């Protein structure tokens, strides 16, 4: 399996220069590598929401559920619960994961279900032509807020930390090597992982220059320590000018939800017999 073989018949319709291309190319590479290392591609499932980001599932020839806006996470969770042998990767937008359906990442993190969420965070609603999202800076002028927003952005990674996520990272589409390492690490992590990928939207919020100036890669960071993670995560609040750390902020081990659920399962040999027995209890 090579990257070419991962292509589909779909025509790519992202804007030239969009940060999504790097995400697409990188995930293809990572899937290829994982596959070469022995994990079968047919055990990979991609899930996406609705938005520019979401088109990624049309562009990669692996199993996928192209779902609805804001609901990537529960779909991914359901797939994982159906078959814990699969690697389930969710591709969400910032409007998607941090706005419309914010509750789901909180609960997936709380459960520590072993799925990976890749958030294409362009800090704007791309596909609906440029409204502010939960991570847009204060005063952002979008089509629903022509005089500028009146709210500070969320720091989604701080929220993830507070929710009990066991793997939290930030990457930047324009730093493809780190992107690749982070994707792989997250996918291989056992437990809930979320990567906030800074993904410039050249059309509605072109942040390349800004990020190029401010990003740096975490070094000598102990990702097992909550306080260190928090410190680095809160260094940049998605609003003020500050250094923007990239890399894995937090990574710990905790029991995963699906195993707890499956523990409760037993093998039933004859359902009809069991129904009979159950009914007998109700006489």
């Amino acid at each position, binding site marked *: 399996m090579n990257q070419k073989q991962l292509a589909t*018949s779909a025509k790519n319709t992202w804007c030239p220069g969009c940060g999504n291309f790097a995400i697409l190319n990188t995930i293809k590479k990572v899937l290829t590598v994982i596959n070469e290392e022995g994990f079968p591609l*047919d055990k990979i499932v991609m899930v996406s929401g609705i938005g520019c980001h979401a088109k990624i599932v049309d562009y990669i020839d692996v199993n*996928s559920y192209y779902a609805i806006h804001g609901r990537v996470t529960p779909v991914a969770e*359901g*797939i994982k*619960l159906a078959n814990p042998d699969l690697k389930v990767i969710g591709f969400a937008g910032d409007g998607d994961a941090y706005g419309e359906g914010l509750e789901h990442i909180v609960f997936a993190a709380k459960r520590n279900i072993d799925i990976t969420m890749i958030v294409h965070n362009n800090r704007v609603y791309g596909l609906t032509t440029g409204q502010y999202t939960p991570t847009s800076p204060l005063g952002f002028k979008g089509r629903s807020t022509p005089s500028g927003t009146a709210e500070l952005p969320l720091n989604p990674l701080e929220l993830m930390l507070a929710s009990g996520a066991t793997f939290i990272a930030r990457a930047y589409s324009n730093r493809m090597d780190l992107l690749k390492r982070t994707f792989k690490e997250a996918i291989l992590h056992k437990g809930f992982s979320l990567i906030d990928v800074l993904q410039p939207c050249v059309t509605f919020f072109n942040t390349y220059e800004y990020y190029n100036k401010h990003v740096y890669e975490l070094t000598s960071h102990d990702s097992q320590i909550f306080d260190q993670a928090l410190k680095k995560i809160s260094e940049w609040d998605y609003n003020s000018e500050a250094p923007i750390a990239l890399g894995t902020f937090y990574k710990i081990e905790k029991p995963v939800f699906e195993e707890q659920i499956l523990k409760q399962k037993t093998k*039933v040999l004859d*359902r009809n017999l069991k129904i009979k027995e159950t009914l007998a209890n109700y006489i």
Partner: protein
Amino acid sequence: MNGYSILIGGKAGDGINQAGLLIARIFNQLGYRIYMYYDYPSLIRGGHNFSIVRATKNKVGTHQNQIDFLLALNQDTIDLHKHRLKKTSNVIYDSDGVKSEGIGIPLKTVIQDEKAPVISRNSCLIGGFCKAAGIKYNILEQVFKKHISRDIELNLRVAHRGYKEVKELAKIRILSKRPLPLLTGNEAIGLGLIKGGLSTYIAYPMTPSSGLLHFLARIAKDFSLKVIHPENEIAVMLMALGSSYGGEKTAVGTSGGGFCLMTEGLSLAGMSEVPIVVMVSQRPGPSTGVPTYTAQSDLHFVLNAGQGEFTRFMVSPGNAEEAYYWSTVAINISWRYQIPSIILVDKTLSEGVFSFDKEAVKNLKEEKPILWDKKQPYKRYLDTKTGISPLSFIPNKDAVIKVNSYTHDEYGITTEEPQMISLMQDKRLRKEQYLIQDLEKYETVNFFGDKGSSVALLCWGSTKGACVEISEKFGLRVVQPIVLSPFPVKQFRERLKGVKKLISVENNSTGQLVRLINQHGFNVDEKILKYDGRPFSLEELESDLKKVIK
């Protein structure tokens, strides 16, 4: 109807549902068929709860206003229900707190004597009732031993005290029928789904659907089910679709408000053609309404829920056997056609207790979905004659399985081409045509009473019970469509042959089934509607009926 009605009442927290069930089980042992109605407001302690147990020779499915025994744990029970008493009725009450005619038992004193918990007052009362009704103590003992898990010795002791306190006033006849399992509608649905291969149930609690969640969670281990209760109904539906796409036969359950939050996912199921079974149990709306009471007022909402047009299967069973049977059908059809199947019930059916006769139900099997034969490269949305595209499951080395909420091509890739849009819409709708044919082999429209009568009652779901029973008295025909989507026009027309006067009986304020049959060119002559949150009692329906048939 050659049987008995026993009402037991008290406060929430007095264990009235459980007490009613114990009485029902005692009659069950005596060979009676059971229907129990349980009435409770939305609170946890206090207020007024009551159960009416009907024990009859032949199965019934509704309660009567008039009762033979009134068992009162508190004064309210007397005050609120004494109008139900006949001359021959007996009252048994807690003489430590209640003023009434009839037989008093000092329940409080007894349990204090025995150092039994307050809740065991009802055991004592049941003991007294058994004696009064001439039911042997050993029947009580047998039932208690099987069905009381905690403090059984204490309970038996206080029951025996009750038994001794009272004189025999009647002699309930023992019938020769074998006892049957007593199931709530929710439990029957659960077992029917299991029979159809259910492997995962996902729900968020909401009265009156929660009973299904609790039941399946309780028996999960026995059937190796995954039972999940996530953050909200949106997550429920979307997780369920993920699970189903992952190959697990998955169902969800809710009531109106929760169903609202599932509608977007339902439409996704329609487009992505991922099977899903949805149990919706109705209660009076709009909005929170009267959450522990009953209504049939969501028919058109559920029938039309979700944007766009897609095929859905919907059934509305009218008793436990139908609930069991049609739940199996629902899951089978959902997977065969890759469409949503909806089981639409209401509080009356969900929480009502029925004698369940499995032998009376045609035995169904879990059906295999239509699977990919591997002859051609896999296309998830292959356009076929029936509109059904063969399934393949993850992982499959030879198939990439892409499902999509956008309009898509056969492979599952998004499209905006006009021809493909129409073609795929046709494909999805075509399934309905085949489903209609397929359904011809089922009895989709039930038929009771005097089948030759030119006056017919039209009902659906839980109102069936009252209609069938009253029809015997009036010599009426009863027509009950069970399948509501796709509407079984052909069978319905046959059932109506020769009907001159059609009277609909519904637990809502506008006549929703009437509106549905109107769409198919049928009309009714009269509507009997009740929308105070309570099901029809036999007597109420009788008096309403008398107003429209002369």
